[in-house]
Each structure stands twice: as C-alpha cells, then as structure tokens.
C-alpha cells in the first residue's frame, strides 16, 4: 500500500483529509516515474488527458427549447460549491424514483443517530431526483441529474409545505469523448457535482452516493487558467448581452493577505479583448495565448499605476452580471444563455481530476 506523507493543507483551500482511496495503481498511460513518486500526489495529477489550448467561440444561445425552463430556473442564480465525482458504478437514470426514497430513508436514519443536522430539527425529508434532459451536448454525455431535499422543521405549523433546504446536481456537458467511451459498461460518468445548502446535508448526500455507487467525491478548485478562460468568455459576450462590469480579484500573499479587486468598465474591457482578437486574426477558436494576453494586459495596466506584481499573487475570483466563479470552486451562473459553455469548461476541470 503506497505510504502517503501527510502534508498540512495549503492555507488558501482546506482540502478534505485524504481518505486512502482504493489504489488504482499506475496504469500504462501515467507519466514516467521520477523522484516525485516519493511524495504521494493528489489523484488525477498524473492524468494524461490533454489540456486544450484553444476552444470554439461560445455563442450565447437560448437553451430553453431543449431544457425545461423550470429546471433552468432551479440552477440559475444560485451559488454552487463544486466537487468532482469519480464514475458511478451501476447508476441508472431509470431508477431515480428509488434513489429518492433510498436517500430520504438514509437522511432520516442519519438524523436518528444524532448526526449533527443543524438545519432545525427535521421531522422528515422529501427528496426528489429529476433528470434535466437536454443539457447533454453529445450523446456520450450522461444526462444531468438534479437532487432536491425539502424538509419540514419542528416549528413549522401543521399544514405548512416542506421548504427546499438543499439542492444539488450531477452533470457532464461535452466531456472528453475518448475518455467517456473508455468507460467500462456498468459505469456512468457524471464528473461534475454542484451543491447549494447546508454543509452537513452536502456531506450526508456525498457519503450516500459514495456508499451506493462506490465513487469518491473530492473538492474541485477552479485554477487561475480556467478563471481567465471564463473572464474572456464572459467579456466576449458583451456586445450581445450587456455584462455591465468585469470584476477580477487577486489575493497577494502579504501578511495580512491583501485582496486587490479591479472592476473594469464593460465597453473598455470588450474593446481590449476585441483588439487582441483582431490582432490574432479573429479565428473561430479562441486561443489560450489570447486569453492570457488579455489578463496580462489588465495586470500590466495596474502595474503601471501601483507597481505591484499581481503575478506574485493568484487570481481568485472573476465575476460579471452573467455569472461569477471563485477559485475555491464556487460558481454562480446568472444567465442561461452561457450555461452550457460554462458547464462544459467545469466538466473538463472535473475530468482532469479523474484517476486514469
């Protein structure tokens, strides 16, 4: 069994304590062994899935035809805490009803054992699993599953309907086709998990999934490259839907830490982005070089004024009226037009975490 030198978590994000997951061993496609094998690595670090260096230009498009607007309303405007999920074993979209009942029973049982459920004393849970049809981009994508938990607190008057206290979803939008096809038959790959509601309920739902489908939930962070992609993606939509502002936030590791936030006028941001696009010939795909040139342009504009090396810190948050994303894996999508491209990007991040 590979010994794992425990390292104290980096201050910025509290990674959950490493449960000694089943060792998948090093399959043929992992990287050559070097001295780094000594220190155990986070799963997925060694994935060989290629990181795309350019993406198609995401056009905002109205998805209300394919996807039930009611479902969209449930996902839009909320802030979701993201995790990655390893493939689910023997998960079937047809048994959603039974899963609802099983999860409800599990939650009730956990409550009996006095597991701390601080959202009031719940009498009973009503769990609803719904399949959100239409979000999948390719036929390899499994359909997105939405989970809602309604609970009635002890104080509620008799006839009062149970309130929605927790919601979450599992999704896979335009996942890496080659990887999805390599999935053994009984496994369904829904790598991206978003949760919104009481933390304790989230852990309970996660442990139920892990026990029932023999999978593993791990924290999904959005690294600065992906935040930069989102910033460029949202700025690109400005002429069509007014983003009203582009706000970037960095954290500089000073003592005490210094947060720098730069809110750019949308039109100016778009003109900068557009001049970079023109510079490289307005191809139909956006290249990573253009994105980093856009962000570096903004950083150098700040450096000219304040002479602070933002590169010594990390980009932690990007937000516009279309949505916001935080490095700790928090995402908010406020308009449904851009939902698919954002979910596609996040699915890609989650897939990179999959053990090969």
């Amino acid at each position, binding site marked *: 069994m590979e010994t794992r030198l425990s390292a104290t978590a980096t201050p*910025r994000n509290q990674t959950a304590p490493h449960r000694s997951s089943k060792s998948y061993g090093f399959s043929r496609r992992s990287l050559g062994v070097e001295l780094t094998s000594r220190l155990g690595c986070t799963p997925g670090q060694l994935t060989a899935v290629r990181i795309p260096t350019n993406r198609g230009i995401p056009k905002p498009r109205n998805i209300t035809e394919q996807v039930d607007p009611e479902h969209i309303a449930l996902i839009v405007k909320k802030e979701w805490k993201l995790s990655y999920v390893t493939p689910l074993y023997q998960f079937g979209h047809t048994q959603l009803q039974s899963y609802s009942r099983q999860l409800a029973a599990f939650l009730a049982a956990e409550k009996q054992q006095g597991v701390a459920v601080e959202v009031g004393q719940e009498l009973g849970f009503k769990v609803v699993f719904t399949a959100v049809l239409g979000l999948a981009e390719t036929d390899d994508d499994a359909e997105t599953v939405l989970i809602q938990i309604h609970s009635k607190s002890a104080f509620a008057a008799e006839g009062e309907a149970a309130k929605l206290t927790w919601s979450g979803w599992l999704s896979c939008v335009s996942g890496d086709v080659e990887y999805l096809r390599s999935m053994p038959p009984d496994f369904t790959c829904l790598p991206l998990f978003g949760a919104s509601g009481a933390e304790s309920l989230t852990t309970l739902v996660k442990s139920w999934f892990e026990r029932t489908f023999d999978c593993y939930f791990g924290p999904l962070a959005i690294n600065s*490259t992906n935040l930069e992609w989102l910033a460029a993606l949202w700025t690109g939509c400005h002429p069509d839907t007014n983003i009203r502002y582009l706000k970037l936030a960095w954290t500089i590791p000073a003592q005490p830490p210094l947060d720098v936030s730069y809110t750019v006028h949308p039109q100016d941001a778009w003109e900068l982005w557009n001049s970079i696009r023109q510079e490289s010939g307005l191809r139909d795909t956006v290249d990573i070089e253009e994105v980093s040139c856009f962000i570096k342009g903004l950083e150098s504009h700040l450096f000219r004024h304040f002479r602070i090396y933002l590169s010594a810190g990390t980009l932690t948050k990007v937000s516009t009226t279309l949505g916001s994303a935080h490095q700790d894996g928090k995402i908010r999508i406020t308009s449904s037009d851009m939902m698919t491209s954002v979910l596609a990007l996040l699915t890609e991040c989650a897939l990179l975490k999959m053990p090969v």
Partner: protein
Amino acid sequence: MSLLKPLNKLPELNTANVLLVENEELFQKKLADAIVLLENNVNVIVRLARSLPLPLESRPRIDLVVFIVHLNSEQSLLSAEASLKHLDSSYFLGKVCFLVTGARCGTLPYERLTSLKKLAATLNSPLLMTEDRTTEGVNTVAQRVLAVLRVAAGLVPMATGLYLSSLTRCTVPTDPDWQNQD
C-alpha cells in the same frame, strides 16, 4: 554583465559553496539552516540570493546553484527564468538544481508545473518536489541538496556532476499525448 562562472576560482580545501536563489526569500533561510546543521564533515557555505546577477563582490567559487520556485506564484517562476540567463553555460553540467514547492495545491494551473519540468529537462538538471512546510520535508530536501552538492563540489570520488545529472535530470513524460501538445 559578469556571468557567474563555475570554474573561475580555485576551490578551498574541503569546502563546498551552494547558492540558493529564491525570489520570495522565505524558504531559503529555513533550508540554509537545515543544510548547515546536517553537514558535519564538509565545511558548507550557503549563500542566499533573491535573483541573479549578484552584486559585484568577491565571493568564492559557487559549486551548485539551487533555484527555489514556488508554484503558487507566477512571479517566482518568471524571476527564476530571468536569473538563468546570468549563469555560465557550463553550470548546466550537473551544477544546477531546481526545487519546486506548493505542487500539491489544488488551485494550481497545470501548465506552470509542466513548463517548469520542460525547462529543467532542456537544461538537463534535476527537479525536486519539495515539502516546505513540515520539518521532515525540509530535512529531506536538505539531505538531497547536500548529496548533489557533494558531487558537484567534487568531494565524492568517482562521481562527477555530469554523471549524476544524467541519472537525476528531470524527464518530461514520454506519453505520446504530451508530444503533440507543444
């Protein structure tokens, strides 16, 4: 501008000089204390610098240059790359070593680590992943640096820096997917 040359001065008897280059000047002090504490028989002089070139002073021959790069800061990588230009090319025959910290942090952009690995591979120098927050981690990497230093300073019979570097240099993963990426 004077390039730092590895062989421009005569070595002193039984002493080894190592130069730790770190833009943040945070980890190098802890590492230097550990190195000096661990080494008993060879007189090890540790010189700490923020970047190259070094201010114009007389200093003994530097046997090993260690670049400490923190992956959570892009400036750390940029500053290391800039300092490399001030090293004489003959340093890259086993007299340069890269230490990388913070590789575990989840919010790390992947390309930073891969580009550093490619850099170390092209300069055929070793790249050591370092745990800079626990004392065991610091002691482990101090031992490794001492091992490389002893060889680079020619204090290990039958072993030259070049020979050791061919064994320990960083290899970019040979996986086909990587190839067509750049």
